[in-house]
């Protein structure tokens, strides 16, 4: 099932996509406050001849790498690194390409006490403020707030077999079923698949993967991602900078489904005006 492909250990990571998509990548480290978090990589490079900023969760492939990168689970210093890189991109007018691949934010004492909550919140706010084009691609596991922190984007792309969810199936089962063994049922109920997210308007586009998943042919997978990013970038180039910020805000404002009997008919639909059927 999908969750397993999204978590496949051979699945291409952010660094792999940087290798395929970005020429002359210059990694930039550190949050300029106290540390560098290897769970988030970032830097400058050339995407099809154009200077861009790349930021993404890095999970690692071998066990040693995974340990070094904390399986892509970022700490406050990781999110603050992302924030200062966003500021760099904004200052120099560079588009931001982000890659999402994390089970969630790092669940440790030092991370909590170092301001994990505010670090995530602030990263979202700073992404919301950008006037440069922002494109996020979910390439593996999009786990909770830790993932969303890098995905407050103008366009959110999602690979066919990637998942994006408010909580892991295990975590959800432990809370609602009071037993983590119900993870398969939780995964079914949470509907974290690309097709469902497209239907809800959470992502704009599904990026096709080679048969069996991206790990079967990373190069082909990367070519599809590059094409989708390129098209999204071309679309966003046609929008004025402050208008991009306003529309990004409006994009997220529209996410959710509710019913308001008091709204005058015609102004908004019964289903919040933003139900997927009307998009």
């Amino acid at each position, binding site marked *: 099932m999908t969750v397993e492909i999204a978590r496949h250990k051979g699945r291409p990571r952010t660094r792999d996509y940087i290798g395929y998509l970005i020429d002359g990548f210059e990694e930039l480290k550190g949050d300029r406050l106290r540390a560098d978090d290897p769970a988030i990589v970032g830097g400058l490079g050339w995407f099809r001849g154009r200077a861009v900023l790349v930021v993404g969760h890095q999970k690692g492939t071998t066990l040693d790498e995974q340990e070094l990168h904390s399986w892509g689970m970022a700490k406050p210093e990781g999110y603050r690194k992302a924030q200062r890189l966003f500021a760099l991109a904004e200052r120099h007018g560079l588009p931001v390409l982000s890659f999402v691949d994390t089970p969630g*934010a790092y*669940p*440790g*004492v030092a*991370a*909590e*006490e170092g*301001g*994990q*909550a*505010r670090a*995530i*919140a*602030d990263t*979202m*706010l700073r992404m*919301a*403020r950008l006037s440069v084009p922002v494109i996020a691609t979910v390439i593996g596991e999009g786990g*909770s*707030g830790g993932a*969303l922190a890098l*995905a*407050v984007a103008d366009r959110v792309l999602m690979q066919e077999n990637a998942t*994006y*969810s*408010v*909580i892991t199936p295990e*975590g*959800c089962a432990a*809370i*609602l*079923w009071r037993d983590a063994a119900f993870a398969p*049922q*939780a995964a079914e*109920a*949470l*509907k*974290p698949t690309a097709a*469902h*997210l497209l239907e*809800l308007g*959470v992502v704009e586009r599904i990026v096709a993967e080679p048969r069996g998943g991206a790990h079967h042919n990373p190069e082909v997978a990367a070519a599809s991602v590059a094409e989708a990013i390129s098209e999204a970038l071309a679309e966003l180039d046609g929008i004025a900078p402050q208008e991009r*910020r306003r529309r*990004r*805000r409006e994009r*997220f*404002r529209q*996410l*959710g*489904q*509710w*019913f*308001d*009997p*008091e709204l005058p008919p015609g102004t908004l639909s019964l*289903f*919040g005006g933003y139900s997927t059927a009307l998009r």
Partner: protein
Amino acid sequence: MNVTVEIERRDSDPVKPEWACPSCHQPARLADLRANLMVCPHCGFHLRIGARERIRQLVDEGTFRELWSNVLTLDPLKFTDLETYPERVREAQAKTGLNEAIVTGTAAVDGTQCVLAVMDFGFMGGSMGSVVGEKLWRSTELAAGEDLPLVAVCSSGGARMQEGILSLMQMAKTSCAVDLINEATSPFVTILADPCTGGVVASFATLADICIAEPGAQLYFTGPRVIAETTHEKLPQGFGSAERNLQLGHLDAVVARKDLRVRVGNYLRLLGGGEEPDRVTTTIGRERGKGGMGQTALERAKAFATYARRPFVRGDREAAGEAEEPAAREPSP
């Protein structure tokens, strides 16, 4: 879980049972407890309170006007765990008497007109789904549009899992709402009440201009249980408490419940171009230049009346009069 509701029900009972503080175990009469704003009279332990009680305590009497109370939850995922999502919502509605986990509207806090958003932990753990996000958005939009401050009381277990990815998106939505209110430079104050965790504390709750908490409130993104299960770390004394968060630099202040109204009122005046408290009560309503408190408050009141398409109940002349005698009010029966 929701202590408030339980006690309120008993309160109407002619035979009032004794109450014992869960912290210091000392007994108290419920009437005394209520008069003390649901804070233990012996040890100062702050009990959780519902949104209605919070509003009664925090705002100037008779100034609260509720908005958007009929925005209702849908079931976008057709989610079923041990119960269906609509069943869980109905139970929460019956238990709390609220339609959703947040109550929004306008009010005066110690004489300053503001937009108010109050979360209720008793409603499905105060979890943030589409309705909470939408009402929060409308609150910021109103505050930004009318040049009013926004006060949010946050108490939540995090995202509403039953709405799946859409509940996660409310974190982004409310953060974008903060961008909106920041752009308009309307003051934004959050009060974090026990417990404030997960997706709420990692979005709008900690993005306010001023962020304060009640004593003893538990505040964290990842909880002690998950940390213990995943990283097996030993938790330091007082982990996640408001006091420790203050020490670590994550809060502006820890403020006792009885002081909230006056302190928040002062923040709003300091950030919103208001007057010092004692002068507000004497000059309000007088003819003053632009930016003066009295003039704009009236204009704001009129703007509200138009917005809500209903007559505005009271001006803040009366509300400001109350500024002289803060906090220690008798709770209404």
